[in-house]
């Protein structure tokens, strides 16, 4: 930061342009913090001094303005505008070190050329990119094939003779890909070759099936999330620095969890056509250390066997969350073993539209959780046409006080921007939260 200018200037210029007292790098620092490049570009019209300052911003969050994302029609109509605008921004942009690079729009395989061109531009930044995100679904309703992470960019990245690829690899701290198909080879390349990578999130990727293996003492990952990646059915995780592991897949054949002494936040789920055991057993060894444990299970074609839920100790648990989809003949009494193992009383409530069948299952559950259930929360979110005659009948009378005290708490106290995706399959979700 330039100190000379700041020393010379005094507060004597009372009614003057306040910001003009500041050196450029502080103004750029303000622009960096505006959140996205739309806001940043808007400052170019303020005065001639501001004209080009935004092009030095290290924040290339290319979110579209909120008001154009209202309907699918608008999204389709504005797509050429978005593409032109991103082109222009990347053309004008001059900062060589990027903190955030984020593309967010409904873009698909037909847009391969533009997307690959943009990734090229990001890779070409001399000072690298710390947080790289492609989020190619705004509403995601168009049924085009998905974009495939480009082989040509991968070739640049893995080439030892390419300086830019090297600075991208050596500065990357977080990688997040949504609705981008990425092969196992490229994914494992990022995992093993990026020395600073702390956060990895892949969602809705349908690459050819591969076994995911993230194992090694030199890996620095703290957060790993795979959401709706149905092509991964074998998983092995052993990362000493790992804090959070979230995996939502389908019919997992094997899930191995190795050396993860710091793991405190786990979310596991998927369509359990195979054995529920495959989802639960691998994490049993880690239960005593967990702070947050979430199951997102679809049990439609899975016969319930209560014994698959373990008797366990959960002394450190702060949040226990179940999302369960099943048929009305499913008994979920096995869940109570885990609920009872929690150290402190909490709340129960539901999310999503519930049909009649869910109300039946909720009644069964309410027997179990009576005494600490948050009746008012449940009542507020319960549709009118359920079987239960009234929440008071279901829960008894003694819960009002705690409900009032805790009524403001939310479903996912640990919620972060990376967990907004929820399973959409199935018409009857229920959630139990011990908080």
């Amino acid at each position, binding site marked *: 930061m330039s100190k000379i200018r700041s020393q010379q200037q005094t507060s004597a210029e009372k009614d003057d*342009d*306040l910001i003009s007292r500041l050196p450029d790098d*502080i103004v750029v620092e*303000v*622009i960096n913090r505006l959140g996205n490049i*739309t806001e940043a570009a808007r400052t170019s*019209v303020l005065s001639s001094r501001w004209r080009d300052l935004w092009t030095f911003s290290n924040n290339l969050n290319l979110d579209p303005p909120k008001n154009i994302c209202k309907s699918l029609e608008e999204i389709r109509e504005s797509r050429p505008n978005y593409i032109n*605008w991103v082109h*222009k921004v990347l053309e004008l942009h001059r900062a060589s070190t990027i903190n955030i690079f984020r593309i967010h729009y409904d873009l698909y395989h037909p847009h391969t050329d533009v997307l690959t061109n943009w990734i090229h531009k990001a890779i070409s930044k001399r000072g690298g990119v710390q947080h790289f995100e492609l989020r190619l679904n705004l509403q995601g309703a168009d049924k085009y094939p998905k974009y495939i992470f480009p082989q040509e960019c991968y070739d640049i990245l893995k080439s030892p003779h390419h300086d830019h690829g090297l600075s991208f690899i050596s500065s990357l701290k977080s990688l997040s890909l949504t609705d981008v198909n990425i092969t196992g080879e490229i994914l494992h390349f990022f995992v093993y070759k990026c020395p600073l990578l702390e956060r990895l999130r892949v969602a809705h990727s349908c690459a050819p099936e591969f076994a995911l293996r993230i194992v090694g003492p030199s890996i620095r990952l703290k957060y790993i999330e795979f959401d709706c990646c149905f092509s991964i059915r074998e998983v092995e995780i052993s990362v000493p620095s790992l804090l959070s592991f979230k995996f939502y897949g389908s019919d997992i054949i094997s899930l191995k969890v190795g050396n993860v002494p710091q793991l405190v936040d786990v979310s596991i789920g998927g369509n359990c056509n195979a054995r529920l055991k495959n989802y639960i057993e691998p994490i049993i060894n880690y239960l005593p250390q967990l702070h947050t444990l979430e199951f997102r299970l679809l049990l439609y074609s899975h016969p319930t066997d209560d014994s698959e839920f373990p008797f366990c100790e959960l002394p450190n648990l702060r949040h226990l969350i179940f999302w369960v989809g099943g048929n009305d003949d499913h008994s979920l009494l096995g869940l109570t073993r885990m609920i009872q193992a929690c150290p402190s009383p909490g709340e129960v409530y539901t999310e999503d539209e519930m049909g009649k069948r869910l109300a039946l299952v909720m009644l069964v559950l309410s027997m179990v959780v009576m005494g600490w259930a948050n009746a008012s929360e449940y009542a507020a979110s319960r549709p009118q046409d359920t079987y239960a005659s009234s929440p008071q009948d279901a829960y008894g009378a003694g819960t009002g006080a705690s409900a009032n005290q805790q009524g403001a708490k939310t479903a996912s106290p640990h919620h972060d921007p990376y967990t907004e995706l929820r399973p959409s399959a199935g018409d009857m979700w229920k959630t139990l939260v011990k908080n």
Partner: protein
Amino acid sequence: MAIMYALKSSDNEIFEVEQKVIEQSETIKKMIEDGAATGEIPLQVSSKTLAKVLEWCKQRQHKTVENENDDNKGKRKKERDEDDDIKEWENKFSDELKADKDVLFDLLLASNYLDLPALLSFLCQLVADMVAGKMPEEIRRMFNIENDFTPEEEKAITAEHGWAFQP
């Protein structure tokens, strides 16, 4: 016994400050380490602004010391309470600065000059929050920015970023 230093503002007011508090400023820390800080340390910062700087540094110092003294027992609840306290203090600090933009911008310059990265980053965020979501005319009014573009130039720039200017 804490070591005290005397800071002299640009309008010759003296502030007696503990070394630990003022060492958060990399600039002053270097002066002390180099032995250049004997007697009064003269600073190119007005007394009004320096008072604000010290208010910030004392609050930060207070927080660090308390954390060091904590044992693990009951730490979580205490941390939560402390976070609330700090949030409240920061809100009050921000509100005062928003009301007096002269001090806000002098403080920005002072935090840059004194090399106080945490304060600089806090203030940049504060200004960014004031700017975010506003149309250019509002931003100009807020900070007395003179529009030196001709109407044609302004129109051309607005057209260049078409949809960035949608309200």
